């Protein structure tokens, strides 16, 4: 009998630790094991996926899995008593049908062990065939065979650019040097993205095993995990996992009793988005300011400390042990012709079931939104999905049948990126969305090259003008001109992709830009500068709540007489709109 408590980021935030403690205490107190004559254990697991329903608890009893949602510590006693001891499922707290539809279309490869095993136990990882692939590779396979296997699997870099991993390793293998490095890029910085975090927190050994296999393939003796310090739990679990792997001889000198030496160090990032760019990441490890340098030379020839360096993303590396264990043919069986395998997405925004999902490449956006995500939470029309974070773009509702793969998304003006997926509904203003992302890239630009440093600033200022009602008819043209220059001329990927959110929203939602500029209206009623508040005298009951709520003294009115708003004093905070119980405050 096993009880699994979700302790991914959302699980912990919802109180997973307290729930787990409650289970442990309750199991001890009630002596469940003795009563049902079966071993009974409860342990934490990484993200179970459906973060919206956290804390999720899985109970495995008599070969069947039961999942409870929204579990609180005070619910534990009843579950133990009725279900674990009594054998009767507590129906009130079971997950509903949405849970099944959330999982039905998913295919778990990277996340297979995440949510199944205790991430802090190397025994748990080994019990699900962990480190078998690395052991096998070191005992009986050549680096060339490994590279061929990865090439045949069709795996492409999951960090965003989609460069074929096998090819990268081949270049790393061919680079001649006595010292080589392999780096795991865990500097996940896209707003709304938490895939890499969940993988490391849920199955850190898988990443380490992937790195060992990669290091052997390119013959690198040293590895680094560059991980952001804002992920303390991931860092802690990774440290723990590295110590465990070292103590078993999986890292260090002569790993797996071979003649190959390999060890991994952790380097904490200090929270700069640009350090996810590989040359900036290298500079940061070297102790320099995280500023990208032009390529070529590519890191695979001259990387860390000027030595050949292969940099792979967390998810890419976590795929490796599965590909080696199950064969390239198995992996290539998922996905599309040019985008093989599965991809993890962090589904967030206005969706009913936000969470962490893993789907085969080539699944349609519709399947993700409607089936896995359960549709829009508010019930309002789905407007668009933003993929790829600040480097990506928006896919409009009209393109819901687009397949999620590198080529299709690029063609639509967005990217797969690292896997952030923000769902937007009718209440989201697309100009504002673009502004949000440009604000982010502008603030995170390293300042080295002119187009990114100054260009994105001008882009942001133009968007701010438009959203505050001061746009001019030439502004769309200006945005396109600035975007074109920034894309062509910026030094690194940050600048080259920074205009994507602007260009894709202009492409698909030009009418919203026009409405802001020409009609001075924000159709989604988001942009404060374009809103006007007024009171419908017929509906106003003169209750005075708006008068009290107004922070700027813009509302006036006497008892039993309809109130009024003075537009000159109104600061458009919306307080009156929110407090009115009669729908008398109108927002235009």
């Amino acid at each position: 009998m096993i009880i699994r408590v979700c302790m991914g980021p959302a699980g912990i935030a919802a109180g997973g630790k307290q729930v787990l403690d409650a289970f442990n205490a309750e199991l001890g107190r009630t002596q469940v094991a003795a009563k049902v004559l079966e071993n009974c254990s409860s342990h934490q697991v990484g993200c179970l996926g459906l973060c919206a329903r956290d804390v999720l608890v899985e109970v495995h009893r008599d070969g069947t899995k039961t999942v409870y949602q929204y579990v609180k510590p005070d619910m534990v006693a009843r579950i133990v008593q009725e279900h674990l001891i009594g054998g009767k499922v507590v129906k009130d707290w079971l997950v509903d049908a949405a849970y099944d539809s959330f999982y039905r279309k998913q295919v778990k490869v990277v996340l297979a062990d995440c949510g199944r095993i205790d991430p802090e136990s190397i025994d748990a990882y080994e019990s699900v065939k962990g480190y078998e692939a690395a052991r096998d590779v070191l005992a009986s396979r050549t680096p060339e065979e490994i590279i061929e296997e990865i090439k045949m699997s069709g795996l492409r870099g999951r960090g965003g650019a989609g460069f074929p991993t096998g090819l990268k390793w081949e270049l790393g293998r061919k680079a001649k040097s006595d010292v080589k490095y392999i780096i795991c890029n865990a500097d996940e910085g896209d707003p709304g993205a938490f895939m890499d975090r969940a993988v490391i927190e849920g199955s850190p050994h898988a990443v380490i095993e992937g790195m060992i296999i990669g290091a052997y393939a390119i013959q690198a003796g040293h590895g680094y995990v560059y991980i952001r310090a804002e992920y303390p739990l991931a860092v802690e679990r990774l440290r723990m996992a590295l110590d465990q792997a070292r103590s078993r001889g999986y890292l260090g000198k002569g790993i797996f009793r071979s003649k190959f030496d390999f060890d991994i160090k952790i380097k904490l990032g200090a929270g700069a988005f640009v350090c996810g760019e590989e040359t900036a990441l290298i500079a940061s490890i070297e102790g320099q300011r995280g500023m990208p340098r032009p390529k070529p030379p590519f890191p695979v020839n001259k990387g860390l400390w000027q030595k050949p360096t292969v940099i792979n993303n967390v998810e890419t590396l976590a795929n490796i042990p599965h590909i080696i264990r199950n064969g390239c043919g198995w992996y290539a069986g998922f996905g599309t012709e040019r985008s093989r395998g599965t991809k993890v997405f962090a589904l967030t925004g206005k969706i009913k079931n936000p969470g962490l999902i893993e789907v085969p490449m080539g699944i349609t956006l519709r399947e993700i939104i409607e089936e896995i995500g359960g549709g829009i939470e508010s019930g309002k029309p789905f407007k668009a999905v933003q993929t790829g974070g600040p480097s990506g773009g928006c896919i409009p509702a009209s393109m819901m049948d687009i397949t999620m793969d590198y080529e299709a998304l690029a063609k639509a003006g967005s990217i797969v990126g690292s896997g952030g997926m923000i769902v937007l509904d009718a209440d989201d203003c697309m100009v504002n969305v673009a502004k949000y992302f440009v604000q982010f890239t502008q603030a995170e630009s390293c300042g080295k090259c002119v187009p990114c440093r100054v260009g994105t600033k001008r882009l942001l200022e133009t968007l701010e003008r438009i959203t505050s009602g001061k746009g001019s008819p030439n502004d769309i043209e200006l945005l396109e001109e600035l975007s074109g220059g920034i894309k062509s001329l910026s030094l690194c990927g940050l600048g080259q992709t920074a205009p994507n959110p602007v260009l894709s929203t202009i492409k698909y939602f030009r009418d919203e830009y026009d409405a802001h500029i020409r009609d001075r209206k924000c159709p989604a009623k988001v942009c404060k500068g374009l809103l006007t508040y007024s009171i419908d005298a017929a509906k106003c009951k003169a209750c005075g709540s708006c008068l009290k709520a107004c922070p700027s003294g813009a509302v006036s009115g006497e008892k039993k007489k309809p109130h009024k708003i003075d537009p000159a004093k109104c600061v458009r905070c919306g307080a009156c709109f929110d407090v009115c119980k009669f729908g008398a405050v109108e927002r235009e």
Partner: protein
Amino acid sequence: MAMVTITINGKALTVPDNLTVMEAANRHGIAIPNLCRHPQLTPFGGCRLCVVEVKGLPRPIASCTTPVTEGMEVTTMTPRLEEHRRFVLELILSDHPNDCMTCQATGSCQLQELAYTYGVKGERYPGERRIYSKRDGNPFIERDLEKCILCGRCVKICDEVQGVEAIDFGYRGFKAKITTPFEDDLDCEFCGQCVSVCPTGALTGKLWKGKGRYEGVRETETVCPYCGTGCNITVHARNNEIIRISSKPWAWNEGLLCVKGRFGYPFVKSPERLTKPLIRRASGNFEETSWTAALEYVSAWLKKIREERGPDAIGGLSSARCTNEENYLFQKLLRAGVGTNNVDHCARL
């Protein structure tokens, strides 16, 4: 060294394979506009003005950082590239005071020259401009960061050539700037190497202000009088007054100077400066005299001491501010003239 053959603007060139595209072009007389590249420093790749087109590559590349490869076909000048350069200049000037009228660098400013060449005024993309009102209180170097284009040359020469690392990039995005540790006033050797490589008026000498730019300025090539190193300097003078000292990059000292050579010239006009020899009389007072009288006085005493006490009663101490030749003559005077080996040099003190 291996050679590769590349084509630049249709012309086939055979060049060493360790060059960048820009170096290869420059060697064959093809200039490429740039602001951050400096031959004494490692390439930076930040200004993006030196972009060129390479056949087969989807986007323009920075020629200052891209190594040449066999068979590369490069074009340095197309309408599209010129448009790109204008775009970059427009952006730079949109965040620049554009106060060339009163700027020290006018006439020697590379940004101004490029703006002139491309006819760019910085009016295309108006927007916020960085304002830094705090003035750096150091005595020598005026740091007007509003004029800074973040080319990184000052940071690089301070680090790569002078080995001091007094300044570096700080902050992010539009707020990025070159800064000292904790934004304190600059406190370094004040060699002014940063000033010499700044392509704009962001770094200038505090002593230079208002003294003259190029109108009526006479340049004289000479040797720095401060020490025996003998750096070549260029003295800029107007109305018979030194207003600035610089050094040519092609001088043997490669345009590098120290704080004394670059900024230590106001002594020339100091009222405290000795311009005539003085003799201290028995009363203890100094008395002005002529060079002839002074030299005769010295030689008479040297002779007298040597006769009465022998040559080893005399010793000579020379100055680090003399040239090698002068020091050579001085020891010769002591050894051959006076007959003693008691000769030394103040640099040993």
